[in-house]
């Protein structure tokens, strides 16, 4: 059952060294900047949580958000589809130096693996990546005359996501294309931590328009005027 947390720090106290952490967002849209930076601050102050596996479509841009986590040295491995950005230096330098791991997953497969994790589907077949080096070592099978690659579910210890509105029971809505991976990650993590721009009473979100039902949400913290990663970067944030 979802609970409201009084601070970013308290909402994040479930994250420990070595955990797998899903982080919502595609580019800057949906990136939970305040949650991420509170986690970076904790790492800088205490040395923990480090050695994290971070799951996101990208691998950081500039020096904010996931890039700040990478610069801080708390990320051991990225699972993503597209570790490029307008300024991918944080990841690229460490990757080429062999200091950070990379599991490259086609974007649709990444989304489906996360959904599968949340939906109790341990494996599924997809045409994506068949015949490519991404498929090497994975079981393959023919269905109806076409070849497919078996992919496994992807789960995480914690998901950090950004919502537009949350009610006290954990029901969420998102803002525009900031939705992207967040509803899936909320399903696939043991503990889902949400920063919401607005927390309302149960019943204030029409049951017809709930995107993430409260059953998938554990911790909510209100961040009334959240930073937008892309806007930060274009504003020259370092």
């Amino acid at each position, binding site marked *: *059952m979802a609970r409201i947390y009084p601070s970013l720090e308290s909402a994040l106290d479930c994250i420990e060294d070595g955990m797998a952490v899903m982080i919502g967002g595609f580019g800057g849209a949906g990136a939970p900047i305040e949650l991420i930076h509170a986690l970076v601050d904790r790492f800088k102050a205490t040395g923990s949580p480090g050695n994290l596996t971070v799951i996101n479509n990208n691998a950081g841009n500039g020096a904010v958000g996931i890039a700040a986590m990478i610069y801080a040295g708390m990320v051991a491995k990225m699972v993503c589809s597209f570790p490029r950005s307008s300024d991918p230096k944080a990841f690229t330098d460490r990757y080429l130096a062999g200091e950070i791991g990379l599991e490259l997953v086609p974007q649709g497969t990444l989304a489906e693996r996360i*959904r599968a*994790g*949340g*939906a*109790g*589907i341990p494996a599924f077949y997809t045409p994506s990546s068949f015949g490519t080096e991404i498929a090497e070592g994975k079981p393959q099978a023919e269905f109806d005359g076409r070849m497919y690659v078996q992919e496994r579910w992807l789960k995480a210890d914690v998901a950090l996501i950004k919502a537009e509105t949350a*009610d*006290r*029971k954990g*029901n969420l809505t998102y803002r525009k294309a900031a939705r992207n991976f967040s509803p899936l990650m909320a*399903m696939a993590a043991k503990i889902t931590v949400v920063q919401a721009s607005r927390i309302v*009473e*149960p*019943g204030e979100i029409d*049951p*017809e328009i*709930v995107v993430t*039902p*409260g*059953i*998938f949400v554990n911790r909510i913290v209100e961040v009334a005027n959240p930073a937008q990663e892309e806007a930060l970067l274009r504003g020259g944030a370092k």
Partner: protein
Amino acid sequence: MAKKLSNAQIAWRAAQDLPDDSYVNLGIGFPEMIAKFKPEGREVVYHTENGILDFGEAPPAGDEDWDLINAGKKAVTLNPGASFFHHADSFAMVRGGHLDVAVLGAYEVAENGDLANWSTGPGSVPAVGGAMDLVHGARQIWVVTDHTTKDGKPKLLKKCRLPLTGVGCVTTVYTSLAVIDIRGGRFVLREKLASMSLDELQALTEATLVADGTVKDLIVPEI
């Protein structure tokens, strides 16, 4: 023989174990009755397979909206904080392990946790609904049932004889005579009617009841 519990009393007893802050699916029919007996102050959100979370009681007769029904096709109402979703999302909740408890009826339960509750075998129309998904999804699977069949034969067996719904899935059985947990492939007796001896209860149970000295009286109110 001791006076056995009514279905309402079995439902009442199961309801006392509903965890606080939990998501629960009550199977259609008898298990639905549990909602009536939820202890005051305990926060339970009910899930129904057909795409509602946090539905409430039946509306008054005449006020039904037949687009607002539960899996048993009974009219329900919504609590504040309810949500609608499609069937694949609904069973993602089930299969993905997001429910704390699912409660089902049973034809037979075996001591290893096997459940048979969907088919009485050839000659009838089989109907499985969501049971096969629920038994492998929720963290706890409770069964509410009479302790024996109508003609007095055991329903708690060494091995199920009817077609299975799920393998090794049941965690607790609330019967008309006892509360029994399934642990390590055994029926572990938690409570029994005080008016009944362990031997009497065992005689109505095919598999061995493990009674380790902590068996309590099964006490329920008149309902």
